[in-house]
Every structure is written in C-alpha cells, then in structure tokens.
C-alpha cells in the first residue's frame, strides 16, 4: 500500500494536497479504496458548495455499499473532477491521481496526519 510523503491525511481516510495557490486537492487514500472495493459511482458536490471540516461532501458507491467522503478542510468547492463521473474506476486504479475536488477559500483544517503517522493509523485499523 502506498502513502506518498508529500500528502497529508485525515483519520477518515482522505488525502489532502496543498497547492501553491492556497487551494487543496482532496481524494480517497489507497487504504480507503482497497477497503471499499471496486467503486462504481461517485456523487460529487457542485462548484461553489461550502465545505465544513469533518462533514460529508460526497459519497462513493461500490456494488453493495455506499460510503460518505468527509472534508478535511472548511472552505468552498473550487473545482470538481468531472472525469470521475464517467470513470469511477480511477479512484481504484490511481487513488492519489484521482482527486475528487479542489477546495478553495480555506478557513480551517482538521488535525491531519503525515504519511508516516497515517500509515501507522491505517495498519491499526486492519
């Protein structure tokens, strides 16, 4: 399982990539996609929707389950990865490339883990 060093992680298994322009990309971790199994659909928010740290902003569907995706940051949805609507399998194939949203106007962030701490946390969950 892969835990890229440059990313930060939430305990609800999202990754955050802080960008130079102050925005942040958010996606599902490798651990999360592995636990969820083959993903078949993602319900994404709309641009301009507000985000609250710790609250659900999207949900992902596998064949027999649906799971909420929680926002690690407070702010606004600046961009949505429309590609996932037609190709949800990208979240399984390339979890760290398949970002769900770009968050902007970030006003707050949940306590996040670095790669090492998250890897340890994920191991505990198993």
């Amino acid at each position, binding site marked *: 399982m892969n835990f890229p060093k440059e990313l930060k992680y939430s305990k609800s298994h999202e990754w955050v990539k802080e960008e130079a322009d102050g925005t942040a990309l958010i996606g599902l971790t490798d651990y999360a996609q592995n636990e969820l199994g*083959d993903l*078949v659909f993602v319900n994404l928010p709309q641009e301009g929707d507000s985000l609250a740290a710790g609250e659900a902003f999207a949900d992902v569907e596998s*064949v027999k389950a649906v799971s909420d995706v929680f926002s690690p940051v407070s702010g606004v949805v600046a961009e949505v990865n429309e590609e996932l609507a037609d190709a949800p*399998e990208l979240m399984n194939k390339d979890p760290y490339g398949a970002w769900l949203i770009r968050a902007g106007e970030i006003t707050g962030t949940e306590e996040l883990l670095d790669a090492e701490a998250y890897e340890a946390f994920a191991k505990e969950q198993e």
Partner: protein
Amino acid sequence: MKLLFERSVPGCGCTILPACDVPLVELDAAKREQALHLPEVSENEISRHYTELAKETHGVNDGSYPLGSCTMKYNPKINEVAAALPGFTKIHPLQPDHTAQGCLEVLQTAEKLLCEITGMDRMTFQPAAGAHGEFTGLLLIKAYHDHRGDTKRTKIIVPDSAHGTNPASAVMAGYQVINIPSRADGCVDLEVLRAAVGEDTAGLMLTNPNTVGLFDKNILEITRIIHEAGGLNYYDGANLNAVMGLVRPGDMGFDVIHLNLHKTFSTPHGGGGPGSGPVGCKAFLQDYLPETGAQSIGRVKAFHGNFLVVVKALNYILMLGREGILQASQNAVLNANYLRKKLSGVYDMAYDETCMHEFVMSLEQEKHEESVSALDVAKALLDYGIHPPTMYFPLIVHEALMVEPTETESKENLDELIRAFLEIHEKAKTDPEYIRSAPHTTTIKRLDEVAAARNPKLRYEF
C-alpha cells in the same frame, strides 16, 4: 438465452383484433414520429420464449427457499383460482358501490379477520407493498401529532437492526431518523431507548420478533417508554409469520402496523410483486386512514389497492381459520429451531438460543480462516437446487446468513437442507476454492456486477 427481440422475424405476429367496425378516424393531434420497435413473433415463439425463461427462474415450487425475512412459504393454488373469478377480475374500480358488493365484502371481511389477528381496530388495503404500508402508517402518526398541534415531534426512532425500508420510509414521511444501537443479542437496549426518547419523539418503528429472529422479551416495557414520551409505536409486520395467531401486535402496545400479505398470508411474491401492504391502526387513528374523510392523510395509490392480492389472502385465511393460523406459526418456529439445532456446532449462530421463525448464522470465522464468505456459501447452495438464505442482513451481524425455512417445508426437505449446509462447510475446509467459485452447475455463473454498475446497459439496442 435469446432475447425476445432476437427472436423477432419481420412479418411475424399474432392475430388478436378483428377489423374496426366503425369508420377510421385520423388522430387530430401530433403523431408519433419515431419507430416503435416491438418484437414480431408468432404465438408459438412467445410461448417457447417464456417457457425457457420460466425454466431459468427459481420459484417456491422449484425447491426450498429459506430466504430470511421474506417468508417464502408455499402459495396455495386455490388462491389463484379465487383471484381469477370473473366476478372479481371484470369489476371496474369506479363501478357504483351497489354493483360491487362482493368486492366490498371481500375488503370488509379481510379487514375484520386481519384486525382480529393483529389486535387492531381498522385497516386500509390501499398500500401496495410493505414499504408502501410503512409510509402510510407513518403518515397516520404524523397526522395524529399534527392534528394535536404537537408539531415538535420530528423524530422516529429506528434500531440499527431494522429493515432498510424503515429509515427510508421515515424520511419519506418527513421525519428525522434516530438510529439506536441494539444490544449484543439484537434486542432493544432499554437504557439507550430511554436516553433517545423525548418531546421530539414522534414514534418508534420495530419488528418483533426482530431481524435476528428473537422475540424481544421487553416488548411491553419498550412500547411503554415510547407512549410515556408521547410517541406512537409502529409495528413492521414483516416477521408476523412467527407469531400470527399467538401474539397480537395490538396487545404488545403497537398503535399502527403494516402486514405483507405476499409473505405471511401466502399470496405469491410474483418475482418481486405485486404485493399488498395493508395498514392497521387503533381506533384513535382511524380518521386519518386513506379514503375516510376530512382528516384523512389522503390516498397513497389510485383506487382500492391491489385488490386481487387481497382476494388471495382472504382465501388463505378462510381456509386456515383459527387452528390453521396457529399451526402455521407454530410450525414455522419449529422448523427454524430444528434447523438451527442441527446446524449449530458446525456453523456459528449469531445468537444460539430459541429463535422464532428465522435465525442468523455468521460466517465470520470461515471468512477469516478459509476465506470463504457468506456469499460463497450462498452460491454453493445453488448447486443443490436450494435458494440461498438472505445474505449480509441484518447489518449488525458480520457475514450474516439469515435462514427462514417456513412452515410448509417437509422434514425431508429440511434434512436435505441440513445435509447441503454441512457438506458445504466440510468442502470449505478441504477445497475452499471450489466453494469460492460456486455455483458450478447453473447455466450462468457468477456475474460481473461491477461492470454492470460502471457501464449500465439497461435496454436492448436495435
């Protein structure tokens, strides 16, 4: 198997209608421009097509069907005969009452008998299925609180062991769902319930026996807690087959109930419907029922519900009578306990105590040790010509298989079922791959559900 459309030969067809005996009139409005693709097939081809499809459809008449929570009992043929009487099938729903006295008497008699069986005072037959009944019953609760001006009651309490329809119905009725965790034995935790109720409690939705097949001994205390908080009790009748004729929901403190006539009262499931989900209530709620008057919640369906299904259920109740109803639930419970006893020790019972009409096994250990899941065991049963139990429900048991044999299975069938379960368990140890790749004898093997959901193909393209 060919699709009906693939059997189509241009120019083929059936001769059904005579020529028109009045002058043809051209439609004086915008006409359909796109082609209408329907199969062009002879009657012989249609008949063979559906005979082929029927052979690839497992019904109760094909073999054991111990599908938990679904009560797949034998469907008496006399039900079908009664429902096919022209005196019922040819009656228009908007005929004047004096020309439909037989239909009205069917509804009235069924209401009287079912009220006696459930301990309710009134019943509506408008709801078409269990979930539809839940929605209707919750609207009665909503109307009750609304008419009292008690508008702060916005929450419905639902245990986490409940059927998925319960929380979904509560939301459709405009309620917020309060999920409460069940005790380790699947019963309601009284302390948790006491903490959950309050001035915002509109009601509780509960099934008893519950979804792990246990009768909640604290039922009177549970319904009292809700009543004392000012809420009403809703009984999900999905599991009534365990106790019909022995325990009346009305006597347990329930105010509203729905029944599933297609489960408990033997009208067939029809491959997923039509069912019938009548809703019964205590007298103080009767003014809110559909088709009543000014305070009614309004209609939930056109006309009078799935009437012909009610005919079948009435037929069944008349035939069984007091004694037969009692024997049905007694034997439903006996058959379940006989199976449970014979399988426990080999399979892990989620709760190894006297169950009602069904019980739940957990395959968690097998999953861990042999990587054989509940799904794999279910698929292996297909090779024995047995319909698998309900899988992965209730959610509070991991790797759950929920087994409901019903009262109409013979001892030989039950013993065969036991033998199949034991053989599969043995095979899972010696050759787990064989079980993981089951079924082996069906015409179609395991299907790619991921591909079906990622790239939905929901119709035939011409």
